[in-house]
C-alpha cells in the first residue's frame, strides 16, 4: 500500500457511508489531504483533534474523518469552536470553512475570532463561489466575474481573506493553493502549532460552478492559473505594486506573538479568586 493510501486509511472513517459529496475537480479533497498530513506529521492523536465546520461544500469535510467532528450552522463554526476550546483547552480545535461561510454570513464571527485570539486554527477554502447552492457570487468572487446571481457581471469587490485576517489581528496568517500542495501541508502544520488564532486561506478551484460559467477551463487549467498567478511572499515584497495586479501572494503573511485568550482568562480567574495581581 502506498504511503498516501495508508494515511487515508488511518484517518478516514470506515463506518461512514461513502462516496463523498464533492464534484470531480474540486479542490476540497486536496485540502483534506493536506490537513491529514499535517495532523499526522504533528503526531496528534485522533482523540485530541476536533474538526469543526459550517455549511456548504467545505462543511461536509469533518464527517469523513475519524476525529471528534462537528458540522455546525452556516457561518457559526468559529463560535461553536470557541466554546469547545475554552472548556477543553487541551484539544486541538480546527475549523474548516468556505469563503461564503467564513466571510459573508460568518464575517462578523471571523473578525472577532481573530481579534479575540482564542487558540483555534481556521482553514478557509476560497473557491470564489457558493458551490453547493449552485454557483452564486460570494464575498470573494472577483469584480467582473459571472455567477448565477450575477449573470451579467459581479459589480461587488472581493474581500482578500488573508489580508483581512492580518488586519483583524490573527497571530498567524498564511495563504496557499491546492496546486502548491507541499506548501499547503506546511502552512496548515504551522497554523495548528501556533498558539493563538491561526488562519490559512486556501485558493481552491471549483470548475463545476465557478470555472464553467466564467469559461476558466477544467480543474487542471484552473490549477495552472494558480501556479501562474501565485507570488511567493518574499518575491512580492520586492515587486512594485502594479506588478501584483490580478495576482495573489502565497506563503506566511504574518507570524506574531500575542497572549492567547485562555492565558489572559487564567489571569482573570486568579484575580477573581484573590490570587495574584492579574499581571
Amino acid at each position, binding site marked *: 500500500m502506498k504511503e498516501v493510501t495508508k494515511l487515508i486509511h488511518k484517518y478516514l472513517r470506515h463506518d461512514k457511508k461513502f462516496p463523498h459529496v464533492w464534484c470531480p475537480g474540486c479542490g476540497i479533497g486536496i485540502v483534506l489531504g493536506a490537513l491529514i498530513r499535517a495532523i499526522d506529521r504533528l503526531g496528534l492523536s485522533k482523540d485530541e483533534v476536533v474538526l469543526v465546520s459550517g455549511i456548504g461544500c467545505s462543511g461536509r469535510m469533518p464527517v469523513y474523518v475519524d476525529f*471528534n467532528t*462537528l458540522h455546525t*450552522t452556516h457561518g457559526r463554526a468559529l463560535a461553536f469552536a470557541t466554546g*469547545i476550546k*475554552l*472548556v477543553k483547552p487541551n484539544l486541538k480545535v480546527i475549523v474548516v470553512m468556505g469563503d461564503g461561510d467564513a466571510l459573508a454570513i460568518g464575517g462578523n464571527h471571523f473578525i472577532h475570532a481573530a481579534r479575540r485570539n482564542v487558540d483555534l486554527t481556521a482553514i478557509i477554502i476560497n473557491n470564489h463561489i457558493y458551490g453547493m447552492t449552485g454557483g452564486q457570487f460570494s464575498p470573494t468572487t472577483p469584480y467582473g466575474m459571472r455567477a448565477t446571481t450575477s449573470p451579467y457581471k459581479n459589480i461587488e469587490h472581493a474581500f482578500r481573506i488573508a489580508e483581512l485576517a492580518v488586519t483583524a489581528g490573527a497571530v498567524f496568517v498564511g495563504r496557499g493553493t491546492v496546486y502548491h500542495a507541499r506548501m499547503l501541508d506546511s502552512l496548515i502544520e504551522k497554523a495548528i502549532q501556533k498558539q493563538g488564532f491561526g488562519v490559512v486561506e486556501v485558493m481552491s478551484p471549483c470548475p463545476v460552478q465557478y470555472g464553467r460559467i466564467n469559461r476558466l477551463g477544467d480543474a487542471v487549467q484552473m490549477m495552472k492559473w494558480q501556479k501562474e498567478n501565485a507570488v511567493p511572499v518574499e518575491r512580492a515584497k520586492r515587486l512594485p505594486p502594479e506588478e501584483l495586479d490580478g495576482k495573489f501572494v502565497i506563503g506566511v503573511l504574518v507570524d506574531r506573538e500575542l497572549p492567547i485568550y485562555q492565558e489572559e482568562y487564567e489571569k482573570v480567574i486568579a484575580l477573581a*479568586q484573590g490570587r495574584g495581581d492579574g499581571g
Partner: protein
Amino acid sequence: MEGEVLLQGNEAVVEGALAAGCRFYAGYPITPSTEIAEAMARRLPQLGGVFIQMEDEIASIAAVIGASLAGAKAMTATSGPGFSLMQENLGFACVAEVPCVVVDVMRGGPSTGLPTSPSQGDVMQARWGTHGDHPIIVLCASSVKECFYLTVRAFNLSEKYRTPVILLLDEVVGHMREKLRIPSPEEIEVVDRPRPTMPPEWYIPYEDTPSGVPPMAPFGEGYRYHVTGLIHDIRGFPTSRPDEIGPFFERLFRKISRNFADIHSSEAFQVEDAEVVVIAYGSVARSAKRAVIEARREGIRAGLLKLLTIWPFEKPAVERAASSARVLLVPEMNMGQISREVKRVNQGRAKVVTLNKMDSTLITPQEILEKIKEVLG
C-alpha cells in the same frame, strides 16, 4: 453563595445556574437581561468557570452549544431581539440533542419594542421560534425564589433529556428584588447528562434507548463521533433514508412526550371549590394571587393555577380546572397566547375569558379582580 440574601431575579438565575453546576456562560448585553451576564462575569471566574462576551447572540448560543459538547453545563441569557437571533442555533441544539439553558427575559416587542417594559410576548416564540417541528421545554418564573429553583430545574431537565430548555422571565421578575434563602448544595438535586458506560468502539451516539435519551460523550474523551444539524442516523451521520429519518423524529419527540408528567409543573391555589380559576404565569401570576385573595375576602370563590412549565403545555392541571370551575380567566401581557392553549384543552367545558394588556404596564390585581366580578356577574 448560601443563606439569606436580597437578590434580583436576574441575579437569582445566576445563583441557581451555579448551584446546578453551570460553568460556562456566553452572552451579549441586552436589556433587561444584562444583569445575568454581569453577575456571571463576576461569579464564574471565582469558581474557575468560563465567562465570555461574544460578538452577538448568534455566537453566544453557538459557544454555549460548543461548551456543552465539550462536557460543560452551559447557558446564555437574552431578551426578545437577541432571542430571535438565537432561534437558528436553538434548532441545532434540538436536533443534535445538546443540553443547554437559554433565559429570555421578556420585554415589549416586536422589534426593539419596549426595552425596559415587561411583556409576555415571547411565549409562542419560545415554543415555535426555530424552524421545523421540534419538541421543546419552556419554564416560566414569577418570583426571585422561582428564578433560582426553576434555573436549577431548567438545567436538570436539559441534562436529563438532552434538550435545550428555555426559562422565561419578564422584565418585572428579572429586575425585582426579594429575599431568597439560597440552599446549601446538599439540599439541591442536581442531574447530570447520561454518559456512555460502554467502551468507545461500542458507542453508538444516537442509538435509541428505553428512555429515548442516548448517552452523551463529551468531545476529547475517546468517544470520537460526528455531530451535525443535518438529520442523522444512529451513528450521527447525515441520512436521507426515510427508514432512518422517521425513527429519528419519533425518538426526538418521544423522549419528551413520554415524560410530560415529569416535565409539567404548576401550583394550584384555592382551586378546589373555585367557580373561577385564574390561569396565569410570570409576574401576572403575582397580581392574580392578590386578586384571588381579595375575591375570597369578598366571598367570591376564586382560585389560581400558576403555570411553571409553559411547554409542553400543562394539560392535566388545566383539564382539572376546566372540569371543576365555571370560568377560566387567562390574564396575559400579550394579545392571547396561552389562552389559545387553554381553549384547546378546555374543549368547551368551562367558559374561557381572556384579559389582555399591551400598554407597557403590569396587569394589576384590581384589573383581575374586576374581571373576576364581571365574568361571574
